[in-house]
């Protein structure tokens, strides 16, 4: 069944992003909406945002962990564009006022060194195309009330991406086994959670391969310089003004987010 008016739904999300006021999930009104409907809205929403002068600098992959997939009731990840206007550098202050209901997730990002175009991309091919990996924290946010999302909702909402803080230290894959890279997340100096790279689909490099193959179905390639956010290594943690989050990755180093009002 074709989606009812993806442009109108994209406009609703666009307005929610601008006003920072959550809206009711699309699946409340129409529970039959699925993944394809979500991507149709995502495409329209992305078009609107790019028309304002933003640009796509990479992609995030979400729903990469078994618990998240179970929660949403899917058996594959989803993706959305990462916008240039949403990237913070290590240690920068991040204002709560920019978001609706933000949470923080430590993850490994891959930076592409050469073009990677699916279909047919293997993990080996993906590894060859990656210039290196960096420490990162994604700020996820939902434009839907109380994070009450189903698959079509989160896909439409740019895979619930809000922003990201990224370390400038780029480590080549020859120096690190990304599957086994350990991570500790602290809030105001207290340990909140730990994880390792394998939490993302068993291997963050496999996430990049999945993304290249999935984008390839739509004729899109990963380009040199693109970031790929490969998925959270732990359960997302709500942010509050005054929090200082620090994710330290073995051999990739730390990345810090200072949350302000």
């Amino acid at each position, binding site marked *: 069944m074709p989606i009812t008016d993806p442009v109108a739904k994209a406009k609703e999300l666009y307005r929610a992003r601008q006003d920072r006021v959550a809206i009711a999930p699309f699946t409340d009104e129409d529970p039959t909406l699925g993944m394809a409907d979500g991507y149709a809205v995502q495409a329209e929403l992305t078009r609107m945002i790019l028309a304002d002068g933003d640009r796509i600098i990479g992609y995030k992959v979400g729903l990469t962990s078994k618990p998240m997939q179970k929660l949403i009731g899917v058996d594959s990840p989803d993706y959305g564009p990462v916008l240039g206007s949403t990237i913070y550098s290590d240690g920068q202050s991040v204002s709560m006022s920019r978001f609706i209901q933000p949470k923080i997730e430590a993850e490994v990002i891959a930076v592409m060194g050469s073009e990677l175009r699916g279909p047919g991309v293997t993990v080996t091919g993906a590894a060859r195309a990656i210039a290196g990996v960096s420490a990162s924290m994604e700020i996820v946010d939902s434009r839907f009330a109380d994070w009450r999302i189903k698959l079509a909702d989160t896909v439409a909402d740019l895979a619930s991406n809000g922003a990201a803080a990224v370390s400038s230290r780029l480590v080549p894959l020859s120096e690190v086994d990304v599957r086994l890279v*350990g991570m500790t997340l602290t809030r105001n100096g207290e340990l909140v959670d730990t994880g390792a790279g394998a939490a993302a689909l068993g291997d963050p490099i496999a996430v990049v391969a999945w993304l290249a193959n999935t984008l390839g179905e739509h004729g899109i390639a990963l380009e040199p310089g693109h970031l790929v956010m490969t998925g959270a290594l732990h359960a997302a943690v709500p942010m509050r003004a005054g929090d200082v989050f620090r994710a330290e990755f073995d051999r990739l180093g730390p990345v810090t987010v200072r949350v302000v009002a």
Partner: protein
Amino acid sequence: MVETQLLADRLAQARDSVTAIPQLSDDTPGLDLETGYAVQRLSRKGRGQVIGWKLGVTSRAKQQQVGVGSPIYGYLTTAHVLDYGEPLVTAEHINPRCEPEIAFVMGADLSGEHVTATEVLAATAGVAPGIEVLDSRFTDYRFTMPDVVADNASAGRYVIGTPVSPAGLDLRLVGVVLEQNGDVIATASGAASLGHPAAAVAWLVRSLASSGEGLRRGDVILSGGLTAATPVSAGDSIVVSIDRIGSVELAVR
């Protein structure tokens, strides 16, 4: 007055007959932590030589799972060892669950009330990837802290891989991956055990000091589960991989 020997006998009976019992605290008013450790000490008799120790309730995941906030310890004897490659036989256990651990192999004796993580690392000959098999003698792992202490911190069996030198390793940051039948079940870093596995061992040494005991050269210390424990049944395979330390595999029959 709590009849500690009777409680130790009850637990031994449960273990030997592979039959779960209700928690001791149900019909033992006055069972506190100290009494729990007294029962645990009595239960060492006839179990062979103590060759090491295990920590329990050291990870956030574990503390949430059992709803408490401080670690506990138990002893390890030759009866707990699974040799490398030896399968876990579920028929010998009540309700086995596996968790990943960093194992310390001591290179020197270490005891004292004020021992720190730094001293622990200095006295460590090697660290190894470990799989601890928990097995509570209580029905469905339902117990209070004094109960689980009396039950030797749910110690079941353990297997460790080849020890490597801890020099140059930041045990706080090493990544840990638990796989069951090829699926990634959970991940963590070493910090999941009390912020640093060596800090967990230091806690153990300080705790042992109160009963005049300590670690001996060659002792194996399981420094605390780093993820929630996963239930296992016959046919399962468990793999624990720890960055730069190695991996260890366990077949379940």
